[in-house]
């Protein structure tokens, strides 16, 4: 059981190393932004993985409310926690990138704002879990909040986008031709895969720990 987890951990570590090499060795220096653009190889995969994590929370929450499988609840809990970690990385690296590029650590631009609202929503989700002692009740309430939170993300996104926008449009997910050169895209994808692996490793470990905690405390 833990051996599979260990293999996943090693693969994730290798992936991170490969991503690091891609980001600094293979991808060329970006012409307009300079080397500070290399932060993107952290910033963008982190938020994509966070979205993945919160999507998993939604699915696991629905499954939990449907059949009350304790495993689905543990998956939702672990995934939300790891998603919050990755969101914090996205926000921190974004601020560090913004200082030399925009001249400020923080602006209330659309995507910064919507991501930080998402961050706060899932922090509240973890807080709700921490504040309810009864495990079964915590699971039910968290599942409801997990569904509301996930459905709220598009609403937050649109509302904040209409409210104000200054951010450059997401370059990777835009349909049609990507304006980025292949080496940049490749470095980004390698890092994305590495982050997904790392996410899988963290979640697998956290789910196992949650199960053991519940067994010990039972």
């Amino acid at each position, binding site marked *: 059981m833990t051996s599979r987890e260990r293999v996943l951990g090693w693969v994730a570590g290798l992936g991170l190393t490969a991503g690091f090499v891609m980001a600094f060795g293979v991808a060329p*220096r970006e012409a*307009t*932004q*300079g*080397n*500070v653009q*290399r*932060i993107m190889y*952290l*910033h963008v995969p*982190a938020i994509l993985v966070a979205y993945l994590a919160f999507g998993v929370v939604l699915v696991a929450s629905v499954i939990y409310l449907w059949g009350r499988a304790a495993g689905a609840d543990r998956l939702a809990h672990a995934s939300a926690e*790891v998603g919050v*970690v990755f969101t*914090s*990385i996205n926000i*921190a*690296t974004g601020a*560090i*990138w913004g*200082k*030399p590029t925009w001249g400020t650590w923080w602006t209330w631009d659309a995507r910064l704002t919507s991501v930080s609202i998402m961050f706060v929503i899932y922090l509240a989700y973890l807080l709700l879990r921490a504040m309810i002692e009864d495990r079964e009740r915590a699971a039910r309430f968290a599942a409801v909040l997990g569904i509301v939170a996930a459905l709220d993300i598009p609403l937050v996104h649109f509302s904040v986008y209409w409210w104000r926008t200054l951010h450059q449009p997401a370059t990777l997910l835009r349909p049609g031709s990507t304006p980025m050169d292949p080496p940049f895209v490749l470095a980004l994808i390698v890092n994305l895969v590495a982050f997904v692996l*790392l996410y899988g490793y*963290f979640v697998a*470990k*956290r789910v196992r*720990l949650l199960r*053991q*905690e519940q067994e*010990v405390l039972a």
Partner: protein
Amino acid sequence: MPDNWSFVLAAYGLAALVLGGYWRRLLRRERELAARERRRGAARDEPRPAHAPPGPPIPRR
């Protein structure tokens, strides 16, 4: 455009710190659980006193 290597370093360093911190937290929890499991296993073999002293408090963050 200047290169701003210090910002790149700060970003990667911070990310490493956050991920490493979370990883270490998981590892520590793992060790604690293992120790608790061992204690419980040992306690099961011998009769438990009526007022067993509770284990050391689990540090929480």
